[in-house]
């Protein structure tokens, strides 16, 4: 029989299924309040930023304070377009997965700003080591949608020859590293890559993304040790979307006040920002990139956001969190907020937005049609079967040659 009081501390979320969604315990400081220090500031002097919350868009959707990146309306519209495309693509891919067109899918709903604004604030020559929920980077960097879909349905045009689960993209031309299903492994890799950038002296930097849950992995801490020791030009993005599958962020956070604050233990510049605020993500990334390029080392950015949908197509959130949380998330929806900001500037309107959604929906539908013309997972054509034995090594050795013969291909 369960004890009424646990004999040791196990953190639990404030509400569970059946409860009324409630985020009243989350302290949201006003937008525009956070100071923006010089990018050369010693890491330890960012303590207030690691504990606070950098916000630019206020409740009236106006850009306020020192962190306002003061972007042209054209850049904002571009960001909006990438975010809407990400959402439309995700929604369509979910439907297609439910129709059995692919084995698996992971949406990024609610987190579009983290990936899109982050990518846009960096140079396209900078290397990214994403986690599995940053497909927005691919849109921001202009990857062909048909190619992305061909990967997800593992057909003959899949650039990964059908070897990876859907959404585990690689795009070398877009400086987008291979996504691993093993969590946090990309963290020390990104640091090593960034060190190699300095070694080459080519001005390139690296960025990586990790979820709140995965910060518990040793690779996160090992990477921060390396980043601190070698002062690597890398941006470590912690996407705190509150949920690691069914596990709330408190299980990884422990008694740490914020995920950004973990960077303080390594003396790294650390920012906690509103991850649903396109302008805040853009500004923080721009700050961190400038700091890295100037030789001042690594920045840890905690993107405070909310995973608005299931972890993956294999997950059902109704088993562990109340329905309707998404609707009352205190930091709103990133697309809606940027849209309202643009409307407030007189640079956008509902008609244009509806037209954009329609255009991108049609684009995604047409793209899928084209993708399927290169084959489907169930009916093919797939990559040739003999490709199983390719790329294990630069050249197959006798074992692989014989095993290919054994398979009869």
């Amino acid at each position: 029989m369960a004890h009424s009081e646990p004999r040791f501390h196990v953190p639990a979320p404030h509400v569970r299924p059946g409860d009324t969604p409630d985020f009243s315990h989350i302290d949201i400081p006003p937008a525009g309040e956070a100071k923006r220090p010089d990018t050369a500031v010693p890491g330890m002097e960012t303590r207030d930023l690691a504990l606070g919350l950098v916000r630019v868009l206020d409740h009236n959707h106006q850009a306020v304070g020192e962190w306002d990146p003061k972007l042209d309306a054209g850049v904002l519209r571009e960001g909006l377009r990438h975010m809407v495309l990400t959402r439309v693509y995700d929604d369509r891919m979910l439907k297609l997965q439910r129709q059995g067109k692919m084995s698996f899918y992971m949406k990024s709903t609610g987190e579009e700003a983290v990936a899109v604004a982050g990518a846009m604030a960096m140079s396209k020559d900078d290397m990214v080591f994403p986690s599995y929920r940053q497909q927005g980077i691919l849109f921001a960097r202009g990857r062909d949608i048909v190619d992305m879909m061909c990967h997800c349905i593992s057909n003959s045009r899949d650039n990964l020859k059908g070897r990876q689960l859907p959404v585990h993209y690689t795009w070398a031309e877009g400086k987008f590293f291979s996504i691993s299903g093993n969590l946090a492994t990309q963290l020390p890799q990104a640091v090593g890559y960034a060190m190699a950038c300095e070694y080459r002296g080519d001005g390139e930097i690296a960025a990586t993304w990790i979820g709140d849950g995965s910060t518990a992995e040793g690779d996160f801490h090992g990477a921060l040790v390396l980043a601190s020791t070698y002062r690597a030009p890398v941006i470590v993005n912690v996407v705190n979307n509150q949920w690691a599958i069914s596990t709330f962020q408190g299980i990884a956070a422990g008694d740490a006040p914020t995920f950004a604050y973990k960077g303080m233990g390594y003396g790294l510049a650390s920012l906690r920002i509103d991850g649903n605020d396109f302008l805040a993500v853009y500004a923080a990334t721009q700050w961190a990139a400038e700091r890295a390029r100037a030789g001042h080392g690594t920045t840890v950015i905690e993107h405070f956001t909310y995973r608005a949908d299931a972890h993956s197509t294999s997950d059902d959130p109704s088993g562990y969190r109340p329905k309707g949380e998404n609707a009352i998330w205190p930091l709103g929806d990133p697309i809606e907020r940027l849209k309202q900001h643009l409307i407030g500037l007189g640079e956008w309107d509902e008609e244009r937005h509806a037209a954009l959604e329609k255009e991108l929906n049609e684009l995604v539908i047409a793209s899928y049609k084209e993708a399927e013309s290169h084959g489907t997972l169930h009916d093919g054509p797939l990559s040739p079967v003999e490709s199983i034995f390719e790329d294990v090594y630069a050249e197959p050795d006798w074992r692989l040659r014989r095993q290919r013969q054994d398979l009869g291909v």
Partner: protein
Amino acid sequence: MAKMNMIQALNSALDNMMERDPDVISFGEDAGYFGGVFRVTANLQTKYGLDRSFDAPINEAAIMGMAIGMAAKGLKPVAEIQFSDYIFPGLDQIVSEMSRIRYRTAGAFTTPVVVRTPCGGGIRGGQTHSMSPEAFFTQVPGVQVVMPSNPYDAKGLLIAAIESPDPVIFFEPKRLYNGPFDGHSGGALSSWANHPKGEVPEDHYSLPIGKAEVVREGSAVTIVAYGTLVLVAQAAAEKAGVDAEVIDLKTLVPYDIETIARSVNKTGRCIVAQEAPRTSGFAAELAAQIQEECFYALEAPIQRVTGWDTPYPHAHEWSYFPGPDRFINAMNTVLEA
């Protein structure tokens, strides 16, 4: 030609490669300023600078991950894991990442890291400084696994490993670092200076990965060994007066089945040897493959000479170590059959 022990030969390989190729860099725990606890990376920092030979924090996973990231950018990292017993925190990075980057990116990215790591017992290292974990890595598609048995091979194979387009786990049998070892624990330490494989060119040369060598010709029985046991097997054959053919495997992945099969088809008898525990060791793979290739030539069951299925003990080290007597017993068994 210079006389070198295995430490000097490995150092010479790193020196040659760092001189030739600015993309080659070396790092590990104590491997920078101090030159490594076994001195394999000695003087490299002085000669090539802090950013080419440096100390790493004590985090094997981070060391492996850092090396992978560097390799993805085109550098040729040679990362030292201080003892192969310590490699396990880095296993996820090796097994799930380094080995598969070429495959899972369909060749768009490659991460040809060289992981150097001292292995094996016979140095009073106890259970945490004596392991031979090579078999774990032979289960990992995408990495090559190498273990030399002498200074000449060590240098040529390390250079080949650094020049390889694929990752290499490079095991250095530390019992052989300072001299050849015949398995007789009580005797005086002999010197590589008196051994033909202690003659090592100072200039660059490489030996092919995947190629074994018949180091003692014979017709009565084939002994397949690698690392320290190559020397022990040779000494045992001498002591027993058996006309044994000894094969130094050198590379475990991909292993040289041609050389093995040619020998076993000739002798009709075979012993496979490893210092690691017996169950699921690399000798088991060799025995399985040899019986597939040579079943009708075999006149006796294949014998294994291995460590016990126990951790490596400290006080009873020499009762664990597969020494000459265990080889002689195995030879008697296969020759009697």
